[in-house]
């Protein structure tokens, strides 16, 4: 039996694909702990690198692996739906700041998408790349959903979202100092809206209120962008 046929036999059931994914995830988590939680190397980045390495080393191709890994990615559906519950619970605490939050969210959400798309378009990037780029500031599961809906590449979007998160988490605190924004609600909102989960983690590293506002901004931005983006992207695509 050749290695190729053996690999094909092994990929006939999803077991190997799931083991590869779990192993990459666990290794990434251990590395993250070992390196004392570096914000520039979240488990999402190291994990996908390790997984890509496994796929490259083993005699399997990405498409076959991805098909088998469906047993795991299927759960992304109910997990994304479930984001509504913490979002609703956060939503309860902000009634007093409803107008500032709504205005800032609308302005920030549209700028996050439109500024990037305008630059990318001016640089001559193609529509499928623009579709992958549009949801760059949204939390990854929603971003992948939006990207797929617009005809983008889910893998590219996941990478773009991770890079954006790392960038926003590391640049917003110094930017806020330069602009003399010391209010934790302002810094928190900017971190969550532009840097989704990674920005929110950075927010909780500053203090609890910054983190709470970041996580609220992340959730509301995800929900809002899911409605606005397809419409905005369609309009920009004209």
């Amino acid at each position, binding site marked *: 039996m050749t290695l190729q046929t053996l690999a094909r036999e092994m990929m006939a059931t999803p077991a190997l694909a799931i083991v590869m994914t779990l192993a*990459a995830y666990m290794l990434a988590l251990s590395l993250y702990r070992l390196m004392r939680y570096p914000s520039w190397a979240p488990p999402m980045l190291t994990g996908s690198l390790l997984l890509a390495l496994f796929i490259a080393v083993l005699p399997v191709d990405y498409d076959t692996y991805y098909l088998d890994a469906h047993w795991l990615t299927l759960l992304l559906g109910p997990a994304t739906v479930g984001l509504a519950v913490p979002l609703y619970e956060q939503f309860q605490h902000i009634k007093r700041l409803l107008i*500032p939050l709504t205005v800032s969210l609308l*302005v*920030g959400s549209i700028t996050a998408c439109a500024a990037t798309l305008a630059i*990318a378009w001016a640089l001559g990037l193609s529509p499928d790349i623009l579709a992958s780029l549009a949801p760059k500031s949204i939390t990854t599961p929603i971003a992948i959903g939006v990207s797929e809906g617009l005809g983008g590449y889910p893998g590219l979007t*996941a990478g773009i979202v991770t890079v954006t998160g790392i960038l926003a988490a590391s640049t917003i605190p110094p*930017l806020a100092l330069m602009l003399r924004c010391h209010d934790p609600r302002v810094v928190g909102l900017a971190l969550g809206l532009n840097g989704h989960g990674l920005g929110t983690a950075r927010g909780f590293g500053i203090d609890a209120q910054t983190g709470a506002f970041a996580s609220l901004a992340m959730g509301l931005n995800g929900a809002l962008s899911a409605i606005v983006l397809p419409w905005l992207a369609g309009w920009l695509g004209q």
Partner: protein
Amino acid sequence: MLKGFMWLMIFLVIGNLLQTVLALPVVGSVLGMLVLFLVLIVRRRSSRSMGVAAGHLIHYFTLLILPSAAGLFFLGTTLTDNWLRLLIAIVLGTLISSVVTLVTMQAMVRWQQRRDDAAGAS
């Protein structure tokens, strides 16, 4: 846990139905999330069972996304031909929107403060 999971799946099915029937460019899971969010707002009460199920699933988001995320390294020329322009768009776009968000929220918080002060003084 299982009851909450069933309800999340029901909202996922509702989202999928909406996507198909209305031919929307957003996947069913995101539509399901929006519908559930609206239902919770109208009901004015969170759901314990759905909260527990959602908590477990959300805890493993990174794991569930890894198969898609690894796709980044198998895009071939789509990535190698475009990575520099992509990076420029991401860096500039993120800086612009970060500054805009900070300035807008700062101005809005001050506006709210003045409004509250005026309401308190009258």
